[in-house]
């Protein structure tokens, strides 16, 4: 109880009140920082590692990404007569080793982050969903 006689004025709590009050009225660079997510999205950094996409002209189906993947996410499958990787994103660590290992720089990881789905099967992204064609500037 000696404690209370020392701290009866509760100055610490009052200081705290002032801090929260400053936030309520946005005094001195204390603005609202959150965004209304589904309606308003934050800008991703250019290096952001999201869903994979594969340049269909560059990919040679060599399987180096498959052997480099730590988790067995990648499988090389046949698609339209050529070999392409297939990503099981349910297992993916998004570490970017496949992107780094690709000798043709065909794999990119810029495909966004809203990857929730209803079944495990739909998390397997086959070539039909990940291939893109690089636009050539003439």
């Amino acid at each position: 109880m000696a404690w209370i006689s020392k701290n009866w004025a509760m100055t610490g709590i009052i200081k705290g009140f002032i801090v929260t009050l400053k936030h309520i009225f946005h005094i001195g660079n204390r603005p609202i920082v959150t965004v209304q997510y589904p309606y308003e999205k934050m800008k991703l950094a250019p290096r952001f590692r999201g869903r994979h996409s594969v340049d269909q002209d560059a990919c040679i189906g060599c399987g180096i990404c498959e052997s480099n993947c730590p988790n067995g996410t990648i499988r090389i499958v046949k698609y339209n007569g050529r070999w392409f990787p297939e990503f099981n994103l349910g297992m993916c660590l998004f570490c970017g080793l496949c992107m780094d290992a690709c000798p043709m720089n065909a794999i990119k990881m810029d495909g966004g982050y809203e990857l929730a789905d209803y079944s495990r099967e739909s998390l397997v992204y086959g070539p039909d969903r990940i291939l893109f064609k690089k636009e050539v500037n003439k």
Partner: protein
Amino acid sequence: METDELLINMGPVHPSTHGVLRFKLIMDGEIIRDCKVVMGYLHRGTEKLAEMKTYLQFIPYTDRLDYIAAMPNNYAYVRAVEELAGIEAPLRAEYIRVLTMELNRITNHLVFMGSLLLDLGASTPIMYGFREREKALQLYEMLCGARMTFSYMRVGGVREDLPEGFIPRLNEFIKDMEMRIVDYEQLINDNEIFLLRMKNIGVISAEEAINYGMTGPSLRGSGVNYDIRKLEPYSIYPDLDFKACVRKECDSYARYLVRIDEMKESLHILKQIADTIPAGEIITTQKYGIAPVTGAPTSVMPYFPRIFTPPEGEVYTRIEAPKGELGFYVVSDGTTKPYRVKIRSPSFCNLVAIPKMVVGLKIPDLIAAFGTIDVVLGDVDR
């Protein structure tokens, strides 16, 4: 009157066990008579996984140990392998590594502060902490493309160079952070209720703390002037000006203050790095004689050998992670995969002291003491 002891299973699903930890408490009313810690609910067999991955492939797994501060995990592992193979990273890479690690120390302590105060019932500080952490995470996203699980370090360097405009944004962050820390201190440090909850709670003396294997800020809160960055300097820490933050009170409040001080020290380090970071390579060329591929279509990807075999040997390296001493014992048998990786995780060893601290106290004190130990269950269970 006859009374009975009550067994309470606190966890594995409980709001304040920071994950899936379980305390088996024998209670006498509100007082804890015995405390047993049950863990393993998040055990993923990381050490076994390491034996089946190549040295490079294991790096993403180290992210998942202490996912609040993943960069030091990356670094500790990479450094162990580098020592094993006798590789040295270029100076710029070391600067970038220390930069990211100190930034991670700040984010870790912000989460610590927030979750501790949330455990004590104040819900505002965690939002403030996450507000600033978000800015740091955006820096990480800018740097390596991920926000928490970076897998950024590589044996012999780092994965990507600093992007354009990184240092100015870092300076902005430092300036912002300095103002915010003042806010935290005003909001929390002198709060009488906070003091009531923290002072003389979870007391552990210096000798006991050492005996119980506590490390890091938790040990420095017990008055042991110990910081691996100072005692066994690694990377560029000898060139940097900083001090180990020590408090002598041995209680929860001291452990909290140490971390707030450390945030300031880390900011100080970041400032020095932002001013003095040298130009140069970001990944070593000494071992393999292969220059990074420059001018490749995506020039952010330095070349690294896919198959990497360090010589036979074993090594134990440790670094000062935000939570304490993080060590990797790596044994190589000369193949492409490590023979054995042992992870000495700070959370696991700091947790040993919890039963000692809390017996005789009450459940709210257990939560306060446990909060100041700063445990991440990914790190405890591995």
